[in-house]
């Protein structure tokens, strides 16, 4: 071989290394190319695809317009039940993630120096599988666990993968989101959630939930309809959030004391006989016990705890009674009692009991159990069932009230410390930054033999991992059908909008199918996501192609909800449980009574840290999106909020830099001095303080709420106690 052979080899033209005259005639300068495009004369294929947004958990439907391979326009789908034709700022902004320079492009392995190096998928799979097998043989499959923030395909494949390995340890992000709430609801009403019929209500109370800040477009639309219908809308929140525009009253409660408010309002209804006695008698169990237990939980008593005047509590309770049954306390999401305090689960339980006093279940304008549809049984040969693992999910003994469908993910930190968990997988989850104290988690995870994170960009969790596997972005993949409950239930589809940008990234279905193969349990993954999606849809009378043709959303009108249906309570007693045996067994009061939060600010320069969303961000997930972060920067949205009177006492002025500190952390940030917040609370927006330098836009802007939160788990329910944090604040340099 001549020496030229090697220096004339070409990626483009092969070993010939050259092209003919006709080909070189095809050469065109960049300027001419640009002009040809601008003139519109270039081949420009326009395609559209219906898909689901991924900038928050609502997964709104949209139509993506793709011209010549590029996403050019996004229009919200009118038919999608959560979108109703409008997307939020995040929806428009987040799409750029597909092309982001911060995308992970190759599987990565951490080397001896702690640096990541690109490796092949084969190497990643075989090394991970080897470690998985070693852990199983030495500690059993229960030493493996998975944490994932549920997405249509992710929920299915992560669970199937772990179960195939024999582990029941599949956790959602729930313990840092809505675990306490859903678990508390379940104790009272046998259901993890319900929906308030806001639009048709005469009165709805929101506790810690802000439709205008954590936007689901249909919820905003409902609230507007409620306003048009003359509903009385009450916001209970230490912070006067942006929903105030669409609300009538702000109740600036002391953070962590919502339970006292709900108990006192219940007390008013019971004492004055203003509750639906027939409904309670027919549906409830243990009412008298509860009534006796909260007899002293009067508005006067609650005033001292909540900071809400007794007269206000009384007035709100009476107004509720007047509006019942077209009234309810809205179920919230993460808000104030999804996972925030030592009393969050009990708050959730009390709210269900309060709604029961209103007799509003399944009543127009009240609290509804809306129907949903799910996929039926698919062909057992093609999609064989995985044997259910023998063990129970770790944490279920310590936190018996926690829903096993979510699990107490934060306990994995302690399990890793104890050595009970050796291998941990993360899919679409930034646990290390968002679920609990980051330092504590990092230290815990350093005990693991194997840590694998799957994501689109280098999250703080990825930074701690031994292996990082690059996911496709949501715009590049088909996922399993997403069933959406509602008055008319629906099924929706996340579909490929654009071609995969990075050839070496893989969607979640491929990653877990191939990993399963490497781990020796590939027999449960002998199908593609397209095949399973189609099979699932066929069980409900649809098909993959059919759903695509239908615009990505199909409704099930035959399942339409109707008001007034009697509720079949799925509690152990078949009743609304004013008293719960399980709670008693878990060491809680059998009936919900007042429980103090773990911590309380002592006044002076002490504050309780509260979090909460801003309309342009979702947790820490969107902070690296430039068009969204520019809004943060322009309007200084990273500032912490402090009550104006408190600020004056402390000599702090609007825009000052302050030092926020406690035993866990000290950080500096500017402050927004405002009338819009309870003096006990310091609002730290939940989106900032990114410590991953690979996220060029997000890095080092603002504070991270979780840095200030000591590691702690809510008794019984397993919530991450994300607002059990007291800090002192002083003017920086003072």
């Amino acid at each position, binding site marked *: 071989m001549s020496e030229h052979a090697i220096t004339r080899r070409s990626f483009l033209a092969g070993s010939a290394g050259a092209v003919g005259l006709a080909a070189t005639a095809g050469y065109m300068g960049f300027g001419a190319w640009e002009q040809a495009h601008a003139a519109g004369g270039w081949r420009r294929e326009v395609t559209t695809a219906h898909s689901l947004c991924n900038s928050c958990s609502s997964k709104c439907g949209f139509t993506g317009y793709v011209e010549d391979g590029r996403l050019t326009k996004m229009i919200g789908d009118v038919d999608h039940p959560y979108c109703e034709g*409008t997307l939020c700022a995040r929806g428009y902004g987040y799409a750029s993630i597909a092309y982001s320079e911060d995308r992970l492009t190759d599987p990565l392995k951490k080397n001896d120096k702690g640096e990541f190096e690109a490796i092949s998928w084969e190497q990643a799979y075989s090394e991970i599988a080897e470690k998985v097998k070693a852990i199983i043989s030495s500690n059993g499959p229960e030493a493996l666990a998975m944490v994932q923030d549920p997405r249509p395909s992710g929920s299915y494949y992560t669970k199937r993968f772990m179960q195939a390995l024999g582990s029941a340890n599949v956790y959602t992000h729930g313990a840092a989101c809505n675990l306490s709430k859903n678990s508390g609801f379940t104790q009272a009403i046998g259901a993890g959630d319900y929906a308030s019929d806001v639009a048709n209500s005469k009165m709805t109370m929101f506790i810690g939930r802000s439709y205008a800040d954590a936007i689901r477009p249909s919820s905003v639309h409902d609230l*507007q309809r409620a306003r048009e219908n003359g509903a009385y809308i009450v916001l209970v929140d230490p912070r006067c959030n942006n929903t105030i525009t669409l609300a009538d009253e*702000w109740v600036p409660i002391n953070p962590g004391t919502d339970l006292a408010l709900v108990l006192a309002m219940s007390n008013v209804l019971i004492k004055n006989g203003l509750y639906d006695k027939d409904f309670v008698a027919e549906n409830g169990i243990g009412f008298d016990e509860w009534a006796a237990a909260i007899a002293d939980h009067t508005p006067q008593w609650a005033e001292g705890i909540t900071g809400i005047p007794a007269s206000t509590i009384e007035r709100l309770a009476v107004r509720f009674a007047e509006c019942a049954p077209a009234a309810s306390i809205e179920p919230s999401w993460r808000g104030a009692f999804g996972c925030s305090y030592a009393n969050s689960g009990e708050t959730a339980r009390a709210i269900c009991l309060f709604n029961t006093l209103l007799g509003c279940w399944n009543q127009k304008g009240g609290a509804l159990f809306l129907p949903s549809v799910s996929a039926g049984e698919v062909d057992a040969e093609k999609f064989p069932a995985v044997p259910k693992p023998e063990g129970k999910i770790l944490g279920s003994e310590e936190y018996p009230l926690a829903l096993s469908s979510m699990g107490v993910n934060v306990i994995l930190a302690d399990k890793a410390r104890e050595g009970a968990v050796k291998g941990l997988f993360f899919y679409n989850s930034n646990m290390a930054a968002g679920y609990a104290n980051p330092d504590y988690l990092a230290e815990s995870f350093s005990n693991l033999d194997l840590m694998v994170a799957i994501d689109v960009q280098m999250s703080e969790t990825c930074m701690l991992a031994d292996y990082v596997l690059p996911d496709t972005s949501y715009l590049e993949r088909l996922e399993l059908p997403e069933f959406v409950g509602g008055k008319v239930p629906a099924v929706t589809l996340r579909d490929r909008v654009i071609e995969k940008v990075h050839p070496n990234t893989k969607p979640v279905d491929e990653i877990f199918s191939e990993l399963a193969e490497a781990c020796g349990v590939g027999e449960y993954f002998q199908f593609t996501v397209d095949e399973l999606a189609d099979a699932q849809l066929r069980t409900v009378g649809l098909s993959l192609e059919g759903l695509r043709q239908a615009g990505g959303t199909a409704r099930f009108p035959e399942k339409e909800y109707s008001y007034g249906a009697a509720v079949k309570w799925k509690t152990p007693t078949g009743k609304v449980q004013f008293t719960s045996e399980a709670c008693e067994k878990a060491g809680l009061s059998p009936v919900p009574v007042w429980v103090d939060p773990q911590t309380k600010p002592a006044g002076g320069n002490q504050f309780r840290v509260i979090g909460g969303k801003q309309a342009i961000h979702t947790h820490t997930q969107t902070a690296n999106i430039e068009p969204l972060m520019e*809004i943060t920067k*322009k309007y200084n949205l990273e500032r912490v909020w402090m009550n104006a009177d408190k600020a004056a006492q402390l000599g702090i002025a609007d825009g000052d830099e302050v030092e926020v500190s406690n035993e866990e952390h000290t950080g500096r940030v500017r402050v927004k001095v405002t009338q819009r917040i309870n003096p006990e609370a310091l609002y730290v927006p939940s989106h900032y303080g990114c410590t991953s330098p690979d996220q060029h836009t997000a890095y080092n802007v603002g504070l991270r709420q979780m840095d200030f939160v000591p590691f702690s788990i809510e008794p019984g329910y397993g919530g991450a106690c994300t607002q059990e944090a007291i800090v002192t604040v002083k003017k920086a340099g003072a």
Partner: protein
Amino acid sequence: MARYGMLINTKKCIGCYACRVACQRQNDLLPNEDFIRYEEKETGTYPAVRVETVPLQCMHCEDAPCAAVCPTGAAYIGTDGIVQVDHGRCIGCKYCMAACPYQVRVFNEETGTVDKCRFCTVSAETSGTQMCSCVEACLTGARLFGDLDDPESDIAQEIAATNAQPIAGDLTKAKIFYVR
């Protein structure tokens, strides 16, 4: 010819920034280039506090100070009454930015020229093209767009019904009306 204008109902505005980001997408703007600016007004004292978000953008004034001060004719009022920027003529002197009482003109560092709201939603109005303009993106329907001179139009009727006014009264004969 239609005299286009907009109505913004701040009682419906939840300050979510969807219109800003949608506008950037619709008009290919830089991430920090915003045709819509927001002013948040907090009134009252704790706990009796109210909040109003006021989105501001080019008001397409009939008496446009930007056009009056522009030395090159780059800022001008088009035949349809829409205030425009001729980027070829703009020399980036920023006189117009200083003159604009609403402070809604923005300087594009990349091109060295000034830009602002183009009333792009006209094309949705006239051709029915689906767009993500501020009007169509608004979650709460706080924005209406249409012909101010057509007494049958939604916008004209809503202005009459709500007594909506330009943000600064008669100052510049602005064509964006506010319900506050």
